[in-house]
């Protein structure tokens, strides 16, 4: 019997990390002109890559940590730079959320927000929520 069990917080983090990655390949910004509409994803320098890569990196790192420790039973160091994994999740989730909110607020000029951006914003906020949930969950036995 498969006894792998994900906590609600880890489900949120895993799902948000996947959504963040998928969103990064969809249009982040779009612009109308030259007889059509053109889009740029988060990997395009016109959409500020590699700055837009930071929230993606945060989300993927968090999801990867959850996946590796839960499914592959990989043993990682308990602390990195003196921080426990729950703290690392909060730091990464906070950074992903704050950057996506800042991207939402900033003056985009002729650029319009596209579906990839919305997915990344949603994922960024979900990552922070998942990280806070993880901190509040009782430690696994």
């Amino acid at each position, binding site marked *: 019997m498969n006894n792998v069990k994900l906590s609600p917080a880890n489900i949120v983090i895993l799902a948000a990390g996947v959504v963040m990655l998928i969103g990064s390949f969809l249009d982040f910004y779009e612009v109308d002109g030259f007889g059509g509409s053109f889009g740029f994803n988060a990997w395009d*320098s016109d959409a*500020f*890559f*590699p*700055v837009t*890569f*930071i929230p993606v990196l945060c989300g993927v790192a968090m999801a990867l940590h959850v996946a590796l420790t839960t499914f592959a039973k990989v043993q990682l160091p308990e602390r990195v*730079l*003196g*921080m426990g994994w*729950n*703290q690392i999740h*909060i*730091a990464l989730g906070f*950074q992903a959320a*704050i*950057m996506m909110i*800042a*991207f939402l*607020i*900033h*003056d*985009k*000029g002729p650029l319009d927000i596209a579906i990839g951006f919305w997915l990344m914003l949603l994922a960024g906020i979900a990552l922070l929520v998942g990280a806070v949930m993880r*901190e509040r969950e009782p430690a696994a036995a």
Partner: protein
Amino acid sequence: MDNKQPTPGEWAIMGGGALALVASFLEFAGDTSAWGEGAFPIVTLIPLYALVMALQVALTKFANVRLPDRVLGFTWEQVHLVLGIFATVMALFWLITADDTGIGAILLLLGAAAACAGAFMLQRERTTGAIG
């Protein structure tokens, strides 16, 4: 030993924060500063992170302000480390992506990197066990 005398790590954090603050008002890219149209608030996060670090050190060192020992479960040394690393990464990546970067972008990176280096030095000075 005078407890009010800042350590090298604390000097680096305060210096880096001050440099990042000054740089944020200089030309970042094109005609805009880190507070200007198109850059606020996404670029502004860099000087804000560095400023929080510098203010925490300056307030506790010189003004004897008592701050909570922990913020959201993080010690102040951990907060410095997290903010310093993210500020440096953001400043570096903006320098890579921005066209027509100005002196403000370069000084912002230097300020963030100095604050980040100070945060690492702080770990040793306060023997947090985070490094080494």
